[in-house]
């Protein structure tokens, strides 16, 4: 697994910066929480109630009790983790394969005694490891910060884990999609752009699915709908069909990545 190790070393810096930034962000959000439950915060809640229903729906505020730190997180902090974290996942996935061709290092790598399958396996594992570490560290940081700043006696661990898996699952889907797209491309810039385009399109689709009944079917096509924090707060569980879709898609992206790269002409 020398390629895996090599890739981890190459992405280490990026991973470190992104993870650190998000841990700080989580700290910020968590430390604001006590002021939410204070009197002034209560006022804000009252104001929120007056907002139009559609508005609340769009931001996923319908069923949230903002005096609960997990709800508070599901409403605000998590949105950033999910969406901006997706940018990280897309970036990691999108460059993982294509960078060899873009930087013309493919010539070195492919002249070594290693099968294309193994190259993809190493890079795939590196992508997964990056996303797991990124979301894993945020998860642990949250667990700590939430328990420090929680104002109520109880802490709903089940909901915490469910919510923590949300960004992980979404990032895995996005990362693997980008990884696949990366095997199709020859230039890093283009792969980046396409992957980011996909992230925001998928996200927009999830918002549209929520807001417009006619477009409700879109929720089956975007991971942002599969794992919607406000829904999960309401249901306290994942929907089986979404889990199945997530698995099918992830495995699907992996399989097509292998298939495509195996037959690809590498131009240098």
């Amino acid at each position: 697994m020398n390629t895996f190790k090599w890739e981890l070393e190459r992405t280490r810096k990026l991973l470190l910066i992104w993870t650190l930034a998000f841990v700080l962000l989580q700290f910020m959000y968590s430390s604001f929480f006590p002021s939410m439950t204070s009197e002034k915060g209560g006022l804000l809640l009252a104001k929120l109630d007056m907002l139009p229903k559609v508005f609340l729906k769009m931001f996923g505020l319908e069923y949230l009790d903002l005096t609960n730190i997990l709800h508070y997180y599901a409403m605000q902090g998590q949105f950033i983790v999910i969406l901006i974290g997706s940018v990280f996942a897309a970036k990691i996935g999108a460059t993982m394969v294509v960078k060899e061709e873009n930087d013309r290092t493919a010539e070195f790598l492919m002249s070594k005694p290693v099968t294309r399958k193994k190259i993809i396996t190493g890079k795939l594992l590196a992508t997964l490891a990056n996303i797991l570490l990124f979301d894993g560290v945020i998860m642990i940081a949250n667990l700590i910060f939430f328990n420090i700043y929680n104002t109520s006696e109880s802490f709903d661990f089940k909901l915490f884990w469910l919510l923590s898996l949300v960004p992980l699952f979404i990032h895995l889907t996005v990362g693997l999609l980008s990884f696949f797209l990366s095997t199709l491309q020859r230039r890093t810039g283009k792969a980046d752009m396409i992957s980011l385009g996909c992230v925001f399109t998928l996200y927009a689709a999830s918002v549209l699915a929520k807001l417009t009944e006619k477009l409700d079917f879109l929720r089956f096509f975007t991971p942002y709908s599969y794992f919607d924090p406000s829904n999960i707060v309401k249901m306290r569980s994942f929907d089986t069909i979404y889990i199945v879709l997530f698995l099918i898609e992830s495995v699907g992206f992996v399989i097509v990545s292998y298939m495509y790269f195996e037959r690809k002409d590498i131009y240098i």
Partner: protein
Amino acid sequence: MADAIFMEKLTKYYGKNRGIVDVDLEVEEGEIFGFIGPNGAGKSTTIRLLLNFLYPTSGTARIFGKDCFRQSHEIKELTGYIPGEVSYYEDVKVKDLLEYSITFYRGDKEKYRKRMIELSERFDLNLDRKIGDLSLGNKKKVSVVQSLIHEPKILIYDEPTNGLDPLIQNELFDLIKEENKRGTTVFFSSHILSEVQKLCTRVAIIRQGKIVAVENVGNLRKKYYKVIKIEGDIGEITLSGAKNLRRVDNTVSFLFSGDINELISFLSKKHIENLSIEEPSLEEIFMSYYSKEEKRNEHIQMGA
């Protein structure tokens, strides 16, 4: 014994663009085989097929009897490769890259590490420099070292002298000869004829994606000619082996493929102001040397 390299009807089209067409080549084990042709003729395409960066449109290729497109990773255990243009991971040290390279090969890693140090010293390569900071020539040295660490049985070098200064070029040629003495087969592409002549036993000439000739270097030299330019008061040229005579004012130029001694004794009797004797360019060689073949091919094409 199996050929070191064997290609049969190897063809590669990039969409509609020609890469190479029906290339047949056999390289014997233990020889230094030159592969020459102008830029864009298909040298790199051929090599990239051999290493399975590309898949062929049709045809077969084998190295030591192994299929280039199905057993490529086994073949690479035995090959050392230098690309035409060297690019490596910019942010790592030379040492890290070479160590990474070593991890791919089976065999004694300690021995490879020793060899890495030996070769780097020989080429005066600093292992602790970052690759991004290296000059083109130094990057090329990295690729030379990288291609030899694992003691390959065949070297596939795509224009290896590109970007190397003459001193290092000689060092490389010496090394290639040494390796060859130990039985290593060398497949060497270049667009510089003299370079190939210095080193190779046989050459294949590729042009517009097709092999136009496979020759012993000795034969090539016999048919090989010089471009002569003379300024001065020269009368009739009465040399056998001079052709394409051209006269502008008092400058005479012609192609000469006869006995050099004859040329010298002829010139010694003339009053000459200036003289140049040049190697012909590859294109010039193709024009004279292969003009017959081309005409024949054209006929075939027109007939078809």
